[in-house]
């Protein structure tokens, strides 16, 4: 089975062919924004970090940012650095092969305005080259599909999440990979996920991951540990984190768990995998994207509007009310299970079909809205 996409030299396939203009540190954001204003076709990504942190945060940010530069949807990249930062532009540009990656350093290029001018000249040329490339038939089995939920309500676990699970099973059946994340939302289901492990070792890994994360949440938040359920979920009818988590993990479908990977890592196995990310949607999507997910299926009950830079995020509403109230933000309505008598499997097929259309070029609402908040995991202090 194939779709029309972009074959990359490293064997992966892209569903988009973007020019990424990325700040290696927040000090470079101004130049990145200026380039983005003059060249709106580029995906201009600013960030909040890149310096003032310790080795573990450096390691995670390096993996995440490199994952973005090396992303299958990115056809070329321009990194803007300041010069004195920890996350030097060259650390992101020198490791990525198979596509044009350029770097400019503000302190070496004559300052902000000169760097902006030079950057625009490079970016315009790269953008022109990318637009000339045509799509070709590439295997569906090369897709990695991220699974995310945010602003959930009690219906998310009734309609949208089980429907995404049905779609996930179809992707796995086609030889592709699906990534379930948000470890916080697995708390209370460690014993269930353990049973899903393709091997007993994998089962033990996921059980350990979830239980260690649970202990971490309790240690960090103490009496406030219950805050891991956002207030919206309680008003929507969810009564415990276990209940919410059961409704969340159903997104992963029913196939055996093939691998447990860390934040921002690339899966080495195909099929259903779990990535360790926080429940915070924005950080979570960055980890999933850094792992190479070319698109994401994102369910919401209360109306999350977040997309992600360079990665199409398909928004699936759990209820018809939000689909009607926020029509420019929702791509598919799983509330049809309730209001139109559709089965979970029917909606799952619709999600799968829409995802393949998106892979072949159809824009999501978030892409049209240019809704692409970017932030990634940072766990240590700033110095």
């Amino acid at each position, binding site marked *: 089975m194939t779709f029309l996409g972009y074959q990359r030299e490293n064997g992966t396939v892209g569903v988009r062919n973007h020019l990424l203009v990325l700040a290696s540190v927040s000090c470079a954001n101004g130049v990145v924004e200026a380039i983005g204003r003059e060249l709106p076709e580029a995906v201009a990504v600013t960030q909040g970090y890149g310096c003032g942190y310790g080795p573990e945060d450096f390691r995670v940010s390096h993996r995440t940012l490199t994952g973005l530069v090396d992303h299958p949807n990115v056809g070329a990249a321009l990194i803007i650095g300041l010069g004195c930062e920890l996350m030097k532009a060259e650390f992101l540009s020198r490791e990525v092969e198979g596509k044009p990656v350029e770097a400019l350093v503000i302190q070496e290029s004559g300052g902000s305005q000169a760097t902006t001018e030079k950057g625009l000249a490079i970016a315009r040329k790269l953008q022109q080259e990318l637009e000339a490339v045509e799509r070709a038939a590439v295997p569906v089995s090369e897709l990695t599909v991220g699974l995310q939920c945010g602003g959930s309500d009690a219906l998310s676990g*009734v309609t949208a999440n089980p429907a995404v699970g049905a779609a996930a099973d179809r992707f796995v059946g086609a030889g592709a990979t699906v990534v379930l994340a948000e470890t916080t939302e697995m708390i209370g289901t460690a014993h269930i996920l353990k049973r899903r492990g393709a091997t007993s070792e994998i089962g033990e890994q996921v059980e350990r991951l979830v239980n260690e994360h649970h202990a971490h949440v309790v240690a960090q938040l103490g009496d406030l540990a219950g805050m891991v359920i956002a207030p919206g979920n309680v008003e929507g009818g969810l009564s415990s*984190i276990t209940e919410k988590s059961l409704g969340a993990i159903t997104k992963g479908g029913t196939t055996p768990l093939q691998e447990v990977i860390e934040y921002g890592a690339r899966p080495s196995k195909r099929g259903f995998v779990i990535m360790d990310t926080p429940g915070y949607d924005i950080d979570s999507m960055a980890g999933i994207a850094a792992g190479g997910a070319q698109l994401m299926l994102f369910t919401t009950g209360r109306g999350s509007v977040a997309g992600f830079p360079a990665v199409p995020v398909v928004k699936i509403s759990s209820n018809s009310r939000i689909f009607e109230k926020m029509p420019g933000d929702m791509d598919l309505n799983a509330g049809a299970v309730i209001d139109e008598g559709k089965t979970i499997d029917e909606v799952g097929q619709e999600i799968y079909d829409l995802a393949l259309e998106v892979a072949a070029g159809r824009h999501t609402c978030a892409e049209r809205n240019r809704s692409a908040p970017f932030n990634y995991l940072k766990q240590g202090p700033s110095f």
Partner: protein
Amino acid sequence: MSLAEQSNAVIHHEDDNVAIAVRPVGAGEAVVVKAEERVRAAEDVDAGHKIALCSIASGGMVYRYGEPIIEATGAIEAGAWVHIHNTKPIPGDVEM
């Protein structure tokens, strides 16, 4: 006739002892799951919230997706609204 016209609540698994209201259910109204009346609502229940399909003893488990999700903190009558006011997380879960 569509599911919407026949039913006002759903369950995920045959072991579940609560149904999820998919639209507001009024006190005294039939709770209909897959076109079958299961119980009468004992009180108003909002969409997305749980309705007990049978009585649940104090300390008894509430089942959804076939798994225990919360524990009753008092006796819950059939048709009652089930939420944080009459339940608590199961042992080992995160306290609210």
